[in-house]
């Protein structure tokens, strides 16, 4: 663990990292000056061994064997910054350029299995440098590793590092430079190729025992390590783990809603409504003559009014509060624990505990959630989780919109909507488990050490996600609102409303202008909800509108991701199923609600 953190340090880039296995599921390439030459560094998904067990790990193995499929086409056209024509990573025959050196990141706190992986990597015959990472954790456990002896035994450079603090990085860079230089001049032979896995394990065990200082073993654990590991176990036991989980999740919900509302009411709304937007409106009114264009810019749906207020004053506060809470969950190592606790329950709806991670990511944004399913074991599981994310896991933009829309009635309505989404998720899980082929797999999931999240890392993560939200979330939202403004002012919306009226007024019992969110919702998830804020709706209509928005088609970017990760027909099926479920649930709710109220 820690590859991505090292990569970020070396290249100055910011790929995501967290305290559980399988965070990195796609490649990232970056440039770094090593020695006196510029090199490409590629961050590869982590793998326990080179016998890959999921799609993310397969990529790592393909990388070593030089298969060009290692960097899949789908990653190429995502603008990841590499693989333009004449890309230095590819040879003329399309195969990958063999690496000048491999930086193998060992986990010092789990030396044996890391050494096994290292032996496997060394069999490929590339120059290898080993970073003995997480050495701080090993020290805390009272394990002293003799890095010098390890270096002599392996015959390759070994540098103890602590990626999060940057310890040992300079030495690592220097040694990489030397290794790359030497690798150019001497031909390395594959080390120990043809040895069986059993032999390699024996060798790894022997070497680990040799370099580990056994005298201190079990006696010098630091007090904080002991306390953390006691907590780590307690959180797994049904008692007190389950009440703690309820408490933690309730706290997360409270932090996301509370902190978000606070930010919105106290900072962003006054800033935008009171300061920025009036200035913009004033400016536009002076420059643009009254008429269609002025209405499009600053009219009722004017994209300089709603287009600024919605993404920045209504949704952004929740983006900040959600990613703050998620970063804490990710870095503490709690997410796999929650997965372990919920495994028994999730088995009943065809899922496994490890699926909790992509599902939780989905409450932020569906795209990383669908990507994260690459780390799941079977295709059936990937498909099930991705489908669920598309159907009933609202992204944070949409959740922000729900909170804005519903909390004026009561926060309980927001909670009610989330309960409804969980109920639909359960039904969808049971159905898909029956319908999709494939035998259920048993869970094998590493439970990482419980760690205290570092304030600087959390702050950086929230900042990164916020930047990503502005470029990938807010700007498209401004564009979509501009489109809406045009449709609205040109009268096209009225026409659309008429076409959709049997569905909107007849079936869902909503006012005709509620056709607007249905059109905009195709572009962005939160836009299936936000226009309702401006309408005068009854409590039941609000809830029906929100429920339809929740289950309605995911945004266009998610559909594209589904098509890329699976196949186009799968993505089309997502569109069909989600809209059917949305209207079905919406119609039933409006009738049920009218009957009860």
């Amino acid at each position, binding site marked *: 663990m820690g590859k991505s953190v090292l990569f970020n340090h070396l290249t100055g880039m910011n790929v995501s990292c967290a305290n559980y296995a399988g965070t990195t599921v796609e490649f990232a390439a970056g440039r770094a000056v090593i020695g006196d030459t510029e090199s490409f560094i590629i961050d590869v998904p982590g793998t326990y061994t080179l016998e890959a067990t999921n799609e993310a790990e397969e990529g790592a193995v393909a990388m070593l064997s030089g298969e060009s499929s290692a960097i899949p086409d789908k990653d190429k056209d995502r603008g990841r910054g590499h693989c333009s024509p004449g890309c230095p990573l590819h040879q003329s025959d399309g195969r990958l350029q063999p690496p000048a050196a491999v930086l193998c990141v060992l986990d010092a706190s*789990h030396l*044996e299995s890391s050494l096994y992986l290292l032996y496997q990597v060394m069999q490929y015959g590339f120059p290898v440098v080993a970073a003995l990472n997480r050495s701080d954790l090993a020290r805390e456990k009272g394990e002293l590793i003799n890095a010098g002896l390890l270096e002599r035994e392996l015959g390759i450079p070994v540098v103890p590092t602590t990626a999060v603090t940057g310890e040992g990085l300079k030495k690592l860079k220097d040694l990489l430079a030397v290794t790359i230089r030497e690798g150019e001049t001497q031909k390395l032979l594959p080390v120990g190729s043809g040895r069986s896995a059993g032999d390699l394990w024996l060798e790894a065990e022997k070497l680990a025992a040799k370099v580990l200082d056994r005298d201190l073993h079990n006696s010098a654990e630091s007090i904080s390590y002991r306390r953390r590991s006691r907590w780590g176990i307690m959180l797994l036991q049904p008692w007190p783990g389950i009440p703690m989980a309820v408490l933690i999740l309730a706290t997360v919900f409270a932090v996301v809603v509370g902190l978000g509302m606070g930010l919105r009411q106290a900072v962003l709304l006054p800033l935008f409504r009171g300061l920025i937007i009036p200035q913009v409106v004033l400016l536009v009114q002076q420059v643009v003559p009254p008429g269609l264009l002025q209405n499009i810019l600053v009219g009722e749906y004017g994209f300089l009014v709603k287009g600024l207020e919605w993404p920045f004053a209504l949704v952004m506060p929740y983006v900040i509060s959600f990613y703050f809470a998620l970063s804490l969950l990710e870095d503490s190592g709690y997410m796999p624990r929650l997965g372990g606790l919920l*495994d*028994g329950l999730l*088995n009943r709806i065809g899922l496994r505990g490890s699926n909790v991670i992509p599902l939780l990511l989905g409450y932020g944004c569906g795209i990383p959630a669908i990507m994260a399913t690459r780390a799941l074991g079977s295709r059936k599981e990937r498909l099930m989780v991705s489908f669920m994310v598309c159907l009933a896991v609202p992204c944070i933009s949409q959740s922000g919109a729900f909170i804005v829309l519903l909390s004026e009635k009561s926060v309980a309505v927001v909670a009610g909507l989330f309960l409804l989404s969980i109920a639909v998720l359960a039904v969808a899980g049971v159905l898909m488990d029956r319908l999709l082929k494939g035998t259920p797999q*048993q869970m*094998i999931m590493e439970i990482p050490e419980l760690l205290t999240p570092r304030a600087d890392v959390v702050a950086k993560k929230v900042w990164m996600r916020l930047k990503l939200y502005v470029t990938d979330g807010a700007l498209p939202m401004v564009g979509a609102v501009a489109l809406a403004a045009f449709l609205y002012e040109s009268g096209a919306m009225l026409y659309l409303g008429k076409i959709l009226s049997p569905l909107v007024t007849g079936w869902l019992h909503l006012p005709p202008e509620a056709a607007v969110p249905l059109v905009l919702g195709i572009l962005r998830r939160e836009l299936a909800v936000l226009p309702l804020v401006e309408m005068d709706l009854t409590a039941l209509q609000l809830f029906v509108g929100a429920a339809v928005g929740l289950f309605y088609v995911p945004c266009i970017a998610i559909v594209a991701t589904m098509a890329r990760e699976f196949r186009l027909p799968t993505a089309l099926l997502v569109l069909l199923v989600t809209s059917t479920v949305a209207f079905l649930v919406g119609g039933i709710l409006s009738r049920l609600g009218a009957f009860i109220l």
Partner: protein
Amino acid sequence: MLGPWRRGKSYGKKKTKDAPGRHEAFTQREMTLEHLPEGEEALIDSVPNLPLLYPLGLRAGKRVRVRARGCLGGPVFAEVERRCVALGRRLAGEVKISPIPIDYEHEKAT
């Protein structure tokens, strides 16, 4: 009527203190990780041939301890060399274990 599998089920509910002693737990002919009482240590005899189990420390000859059991048929949380792994209940049933011989440490050293 209740086979050994049934019998093992009750262990999970008990606290370590009340769990049957090591000898009672191992009286069955073939013991698996699924039924190892919480907190007890045992020696792994064999594991199913799955590529993920080996690197997580689940290999024959390793000492394993059950740290917790999930409810509703949830996983067994096994710890090998201070690395904790959640194993589905059925999978845990395929990990064969045996009691640790009293002079194990001595044996290993020589």
